[in-house]
């Protein structure tokens, strides 16, 4: 028989994030950067060369 354990509490990461300062900032930067790259790629594919 198995026991239901449930996930542990989400571990905290207290170390300072280099360059970006916080995890919130670096995650937001990744998302913004991904969106900008996709926009640039779309612009590139339709640019009137």
């Amino acid at each position, binding site marked *: 028989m198995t026991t239901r354990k449930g996930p542990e509490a989400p571990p905290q990461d207290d170390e300072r994030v280099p360059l970006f300062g916080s995890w919130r900032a670096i995650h937001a930067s990744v998302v913004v*950067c991904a969106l900008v790259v996709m926009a640039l790629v779309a612009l590139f594919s339709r640019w009137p060369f």
Partner: protein
Amino acid sequence: MAVLSGPAAGALATADWAVLCAYLTAIVAFGLWVGRGTKNVSDFFLAGREMRWWAAGLSVMATQISAITFVGTTGQAYTKGMDFLAFYFGLPFAMVVLSLTLVPFFYRAGVFTAYEYLERRFDARTRTLTSLLFLVSRGLSVGVTLYAPSLVLSVIFGWSEAATIAVMGGATILYVVYGGNRSVIWTDVAQMGLVWFGIFTCVTVAVTQLPQHVSLRDALALAQAAGRLEIVSLSPDLSRPYTLWSGLIGGTFLAMAYFGCDQSQVQRYLSGRSLTESRLSLLFNAFLKVPMQFLILLTGVLVFVFFHFQETPLLWNRAELARLEARAPAAELALVRDEAATAHRERAAAAEAFALARHGSGDLAGTRAAYVAAQGRVEASEAEARRFAARVSGKAVNDVNYIFPSYIVSRLRGGLAGLILAVIFAAAMSALAGELNSLATASMVDFYKRFVRRAASPAHDLLVSRLLTAFWGLFACGVALQAGQLGSAIEVVNRFGSYFYGSILGVFGLAVLTPRAGARGAFYGLFAGMGVVFLVSRLTSVAFLWYNVVGALTVFASGLLITALAPAADA
């Protein structure tokens, strides 16, 4: 003015061989040197958990990129365009999700394998099943990882496939068996440095080799007119493989499954010296992966334009072409050749006229339309040549993967061809090294230490780990050597992973996202997910990227439902 330049030269120069030999010698020596301090299984499997984020991050990148991604992607851009880039659109978002969810749980649990965590959260059988699925799928695909570039390179080098497999596989096995993950990661760092250098070199060389009267903008205009720059498709058609939606949604699920649940990737970032370093190594990839693939695809597009003004072979696979010339009726072959040559000459003239019109000397719309029509004739003549070759040989001919290596060998000089072939070797070896190390880890930690010998000396465990690595290396070589006879089985192996990748992600989702899921729900939910994905693949034309979404969501929903319906088993 001559419209097309002369045919390509064939063989590698001495300088190219020297560069290639120098690379192989240096990477093996470096791998052995950095792995000299390996004393126990923690060193061997997790590099002593001492890696910085940039080293682990480059290793994550190196394990993901394989040689066939490098030559296949450029070939795909040449023949179909850059829409494959959409495949990677979801990757950055997946990295953020993993950084917030799975990575902290894995790292803090101090596990060697991702599946080990599932035993702590659910039960031993869920761990065994997921690890077994990894071993079967990765064990078979690692052979294909080795076979695919070997097949291409053997034609380019004029070697037997067995010799290419032995060189590539033997060199990698040597340093991975000796140094384990530390050797894997540090050679990955060196190999990714070489790959990035190679990518920039390829783009630069492709631009500089365009004819003098064709600028980069002209080249891109030609590629655009030929439909090679269409990347972002908004089509809602689920059967189209690469659209914005399949890339964003299906690609996110695929990347979460691959980077979060596949031991070959998990092991790379678990080697970080802290949780912060592990998370940063994934986010590092989130920033760089899409631009890197863009540059590789752009190289393929520039090679496409470059060959507007050069003679191209009837088939890119020289061995296939030689067989065709030996077996085909001469008169029929001459007709196919003439049509291809005429179509290429017409396209070259039309491309020049379009380029000149762009600079003010001619009717821009008219020359563009003429170029598009000429490109259509070239594509039709190429398709006819492949049909003809297939009729003569009795099997389908697909030589997309030979385009870029043929370009390298025939057009690059002064050791550059050797350098770019070394890049292809580096991409193949880095993927192989990470996969061998992870296969040995799962075999050792999830099976040997549980079912064969729980308590043993560190020296014994290290020896068994090395033997398992050697076993998987030889197994990969064996599968690669037999792959030529497997035929469509290779496709089955490649598709096999997509049947359960999303489903395994669903199990990990149950593990970390909700406290309500129980062991029975996770175990049987995994079967439900794989079954539904199998049915979707058989009964619908939905593109493979969506399988991951279907699998993950089915497991998550059915896992919760089974737990709710059978609470006693988990209580």
